[in-house]
């Protein structure tokens, strides 16, 4: 299948980035879940949103090698930005438009990402974990303290999202929310996919692999890290905005530690460095949570913990890693016979 790789390396590199049938199948499945699980639309939208957040973490973690435990800060800032837009822009035509809200959510989160990106340029994994966590905690403090703007611990009330593009209003069944979340997630994902498949994306891998070497060939390592961190923050912000718009409120736990931890967990669940890991992880994690949560609401944590432990112990690269290993074994067997 590989088109005469040694002779035409450029063609081979291009071929590697084509859309594959299983990718198309994935998105087709995502869209058709609307018809298959009409009663779970809200859950599915939430999965898209969470998946998008995990994808944004994948940009920094899986591609640039920056561990963060504070993506929740950007998610939360985006959530509040979109919420405030919807609340105060309510009714006034252009300002209340959800898409504009997302734009603002992304920009505000991106701006925060840009400013804080300078904090993660130095130090070890542990320092990065702690600094990003620290930033998230400070943002959480600010959100709870600034009661006049954010509603403090009680959350932001009175968020009324206008219809998308003035046509589709958010309904109780979550139909609009479903399509809205799906399309926004897909567009962001498509963007990320282009990004990681470009020369820029490759240079991120170089930084992840060996920053010293990257510098000595003239790569502006810090600039690249700032860029990707900002982009990831923007996408996190957009996913936060999505959550606010589809649920019509924002609360401090959108900024909280567990949000960041969950997203990171989901990413590793799915497998980081593949982009799809975040999405698949979100599906599996949430479905599992919903399923186990219905059987034994008090103890579902135990099972999540167990799965996590087993995953780390026995599977490299999360669910995607597992699938790839299976495929390899399968194809090897095929060759053998």
């Amino acid at each position, binding site marked *: 299948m590989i088109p005469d790789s040694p002779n035409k390396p450029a063609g081979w590199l291009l071929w590697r980035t084509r859309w594959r049938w299983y990718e198309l199948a994935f998105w087709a499945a995502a869209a058709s879940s609307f018809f298959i699980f009409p*009663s779970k639309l809200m859950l599915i939208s939430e999965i898209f949103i969470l998946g998008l957040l995990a994808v944004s973490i994948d940009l920094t973690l899986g591609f640039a090698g920056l561990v963060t435990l504070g993506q929740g800060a950007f998610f939360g800032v985006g959530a509040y930005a979109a919420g405030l837009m919807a609340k105060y822009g309510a009714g006034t035509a252009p300002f209340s438009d959800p898409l504009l809200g997302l734009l603002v959510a992304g920009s505000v989160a991106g701006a925060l990402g840009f400013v804080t990106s300078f904090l993660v340029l130095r130090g070890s994994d542990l320092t990065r974990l702690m600094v990003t966590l620290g930033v998230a905690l400070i943002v959480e403090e600010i959100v709870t303290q600034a009661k006049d703007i954010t509603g*403090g611990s*009680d959350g932001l009330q009175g968020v009324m999202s206008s219809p998308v593009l003035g046509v589709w209003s958010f309904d*109780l*069944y979550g139909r609009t929310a479903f399509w809205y979340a799906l399309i926004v997630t897909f567009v962001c994902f498509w963007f990320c996919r282009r990004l990681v498949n470009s020369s820029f994306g490759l240079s991120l891998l170089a930084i992840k692999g060996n920053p010293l070497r990257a510098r000595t060939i003239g790569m502006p390592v810090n600039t690249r890290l700032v860029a990707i961190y900002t982009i990831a923050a923007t996408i996190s912000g957009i996913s936060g905005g999505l959550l606010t718009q589809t649920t*019509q409120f924002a609360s401090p736990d959108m900024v909280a530690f567990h949000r960041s931890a969950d997203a990171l967990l989901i990413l590793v669940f799915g497998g980081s460095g593949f982009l799809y890991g975040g999405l698949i992880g979100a599906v599996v994690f949430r479905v599992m949570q919903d399923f186990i949560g219905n059987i034994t609401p008090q103890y579902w*944590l135990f099972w999540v913990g167990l799965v996590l432990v087993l995953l780390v112990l026995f599977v490299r690269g999360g669910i995607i890693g597992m699938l790839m290993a299976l495929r390899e074994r399968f194809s090897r067997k095929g060759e053998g016979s």
Partner: protein
Amino acid sequence: SQETVKVGLIATLTGPQAASGRQKVAGARLYMQLNGNMVAGKKIELIIKDDTGVADVTRRHAQELIVNDKVAAIAGFSLTPLALAVAPVITQSKTPAIIMTAGTSVITERSPYFVRVSFTLPQQSVPIAEWVANNGAKTAVSLVSDYGPGIDAQNAFKMRFEEKGGKVLEQLKAPLANPEFSPFLQRAKDLKPDALFLFVPAPTAGTLMKQVIDRGLTEANIRVIGTGDITDDDQLNGIGDSVLGLITSHFYSAAHGSAMNQKFVAEFKKANPGMRPNFIAVGGWDGMHAFYEAVKKTNGDTDGTKLVDAMKGATWESPRGMMTIDPQTRDVIQDVYIRKVEKRDGELYNIEFDVVKQVKDPMHK
């Protein structure tokens, strides 16, 4: 074929608030166990969901319960933000939401479909402000957890205490997730007030009370008072003898003397070994009662608006005493007791010694 009426109970069963969720579910289940599950010819079914204390999960559960399970009402809500999160959903879908725990005043104003059977913080704080002012305190300091209910409690306390001629020297707010109260307590101590008013959510109360005792505030002649949350029945024994004599105001005590309460406590302990019912359990119980009565009144009609109308003005005897749903505000009107921690049969109880009858939430206009 018999028709089922479903009620969705959204409780927090994991995380720091898990204990309260457990109480609530136990209370609601106990009600159904003792009163059967048939009302007006319909079978009542309870669907329990865990929201893990996260607002968007609460909201999603609410939406799914309403849309998929077609519940007639939802109930529960351990914290104010969780209740507020469902306001748009219930308004849009016209589904009653019975608040069994959350205690910020404004909740019921956020949707005409909220009905509260628990309490509000101002409702609890005002009586103790009055009582302590009447009993010789001229100055006071308040220390609360920094979130909606805490601020409510603090403001209500200040309002009534100063109406009575006292002076609140300082209103201290400790972060909600906070293991260490010593700086705040020391500051309170240094201000030398006659009384220190406390409110923190139930799970933190034990920690706070230990530190209060350790710091010797009572020995410094500061009268420590608070709402019943800090001497929660569920945890009182764990906190230990040091809280003996502490005076609080609340709408429920496991030691309430009525026959109904004695039966409630006994049955509760039987059904849930090792647990003692607290005000949250009573909230669960009364939430179910309000719903049962409403279904009876509408004769099995589960239209949301009709159910809410049926609940408005309802009056009944609860293990806590007599209670009414205010027809205007849909908020609870109930007796608030002044209690003192005492030891009975080797266990600590809040013993009621004074009562303010039929208190309305002072914050609603």
